[in-house]
């Protein structure tokens, strides 16, 4: 089937079987490989993208349900909040293997968009769905605090 998707502000036409997770459409058909596969059961958050501005697990979003939504992937995360988050991630040298980090960053952007001044507990609660096997959580939380400060300033 052909689907018309709006991704990172661009209209894209893809050919996919109904029921195909958006994740695999992004990665295999559109070659937007910044969005990662971690578990396939919405349990690790590596596949997080924004659908209509909200962090969403693309491994559990069917392609047909993504039609007529605005999808943003890490490649299209360029607004002010995104820039602050990415700069903070680099400042704190958060990444290790990096596989989960696109998802972590998309969630962090979601958090700071909703709540520009999160408490430590807010951060932990919001970010708990994004697993990091290298365990970079200490720095993720520091980076979110730093990005929040930068955005407030």
């Amino acid at each position: 089937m052909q689907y018309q998707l709006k991704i990172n502000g661009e209209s894209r036409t893809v050919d996919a079987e109904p029921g195909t997770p958006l994740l695999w459409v992004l990665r295999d058909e559109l070659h937007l490989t910044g969005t990662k596969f971690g578990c396939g059961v919405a349990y690790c958050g590596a596949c997080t993208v924004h659908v209509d501005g909200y962090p969403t697990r693309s491994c559990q979003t069917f392609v047909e349900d993504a039609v007529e939504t605005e999808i943003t992937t890490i490649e299209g995360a360029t607004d002010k909040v995104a820039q602050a988050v990415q700069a903070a991630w680099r400042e704190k040298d958060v990444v290790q293997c990096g596989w989960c980090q696109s998802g972590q960053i998309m969630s962090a952007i979601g958090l700071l968009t909703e709540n520009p001044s999160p408490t430590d507990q807010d951060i932990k609660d919001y970010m708990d769905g994004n697993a990091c096997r290298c365990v970079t959580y200490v720095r993720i939380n520091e980076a979110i605090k730093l990005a929040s400060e930068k955005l407030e300033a």
Partner: protein
Amino acid sequence: MTINVSRRGFLAGSVAGTTALLVGVNAKGVLTAGSTAAAATTDLNPFVKIDGNGTVTVIIKHFEMGQGTTTGLATLVAEELDANWDKVQTDFAPADDKRYANLFFGGQGTGGSTSIANSYMQYREAGAAARDLLVRAAAQSWGVDASSISIEDGMLKSGGNSGHFGEFVAIATTLEAVEKPAIKTPDQFKLIGSDKLHRKDNTSKTNGTAIFAMDVNLPGMIYAAIIRSPKFGGTVVSFDDADAKEVGGFIAAQVLPNKAGVVAFGKNTWSAFQARDALSVEWDFSAAETRSTDALMADHKSLLDAPQYNLGKEITVQTVAPVLDGAADTIDAEFSFPFLAHAPLESLNCTIEPTENGVRLHDGCQFPSLTRPTLAAILGLEPSQVEIKTLYAGGSFGRRASPTADYNAEAAMAFAVSGRKVPVKLVWSREDDIKGGYYRPMAAHRAKVGLDADGKVIGWDHRVAVKSIMKGSPMEPMTVHDGIDHTSAEGVAGGLYSIPNQAIGLSDFQTEVPILWWRSVGHTHTAFAMESLMDMVATQTGQDPIDMRLSMLDPAAPNPARMIEAIKLVREISGWKKGDKRGFACHYSFNTCVAVVADITVEDSSVHVNKLFMAVECGVAINPDVIRAQMEGGAGYALSAIYRNEITLTDGEVDQYNFPDYELLRNSEMPEVEVAIVPSNNAPTGVGEPGVPPTGPAVANAIFAQTGKRIMDLPMSKAGFDFM
């Protein structure tokens, strides 16, 4: 994207049409230099490449799984060059057993926390040789004496002359490199030890542009997923793909040549997964493991009764018996450890592409020297016909370093049965990973420690039963002697404590379940047993756990002296006091000493680890922040395992399937971590693994200090604790 990087492409300068300086080793292993034009025709492979615009490219012979090696090796070169860090970039080396060998292994590969340690002098000398060439080139160009030239931030200066590296590349390529260039003394270091260097991979890994193996997309590529025997060691009898044919995008299904599974090909990853799940397979389980976890552990424990091997020649479990019989007091303990999955977040995958000459593997390849001959043998090629394109790996923790190159071999078999016409990408699902074996082996320990009337240890009978990781692997000649796999009991044997009459018995467990080194190998279980026992001795004899350990470390011996430094440092930063209700543990692994204090709160059966204090002695700290990151990550990796992770079997089949029942440590569960590094100018030692071993026992000892409960069976959730 289309990836098409040939050997020629790798060697060509990154600025088209300009000359680039290459410094590396020639076939004889001598530092030499040449231009890219020469490199394309002569047999030169560089560690350092400098382009006409002054950009330094450091060629990384190891792979990057997050441990920071690309940053570390780049630091070594940049230090000796006095390069501008912002103009230093990295590129992964091609497969080359000799030129890019791990100097500790003899082949190309990453593991055992050796990347920095084995490369320390090699990469510094490569940087120093390049520096020497540039200085001589500048001297010639300016007509000044080389000794008048200084370099700062990538700029050469002499009197009123100045210029960046790129300006002298053309002349430098005409000069002969010195064989043994002068290198800096530690007091001259500007980048080594600096806290201001950012990781080289922290931009591409935060904007989605870093390319990992699973991100490879090649024209005409098909996707493969494999159904493997639900019981380890089972083989395919027959299969039916009628339901798979209903899956959109399904191409075909075929039995793997070794009958270990059936591969389903699809037009994309999803269709390959769906088709694979729709296959119905009849298996032959006659040679398969069919025991359940309880039986497996009981069989481990029965092996402890009569160890197959004694590690000590002088003291054996037989000769220590009378010593223990005569002891004033004894401590008896038995420990059990489950199978553990590595669960790197990028599940295993790789792509094999046909080339004019053979094949090209795209992989987060940890051991090119094992992978290359394996693929060659399966595909009937010479190893030289197998090209390896190393890409970022989304974690490994040991899993991507497989002696059998298992997932590469699977991909080669899939490629072979596909007809070898188009690229084949094999992708493991998370279920494949959790159920797929190659686990940290189950293990059982039994110990009897004898104490005299003054509370001094006078004898120690320690027995381990575990499946050997090394037997049957290419590493066997290096790690197995007189039948003893030294990685099975490393950390009990080779520990730093002065223990009189220590006997170590070992038995190899046998099972079809494939097992593998898991971040810190034998130390994953031996440190927990040893450091729990040390805590038990301290408790039983009324000693402070830290004082007691210090009393058992010889300050005149090099490594115990390093451990003493680490212990004293962690005692200081944690403000440890006698009678503290916190937990302490320390462990020596991969030539590194780590000491940990765990600060926890227990409410009823809920444990919260508030903070971990860690001190590490790893020789000279190349990148202190990477060391801290590895300690934080190593500690967190250990917590996930000791809290609740286990792979269990029922009638030989794995009970867990994915992260919901093999749950990784979460953000809210991560304690605060404070890491202190013991200052040192000694050669660097490993940091990727040594943070793991002492963390578990430090937490267990803290739980004992607060609750009086001694946890000896992992994971800790078995003892009724939950963690929050």
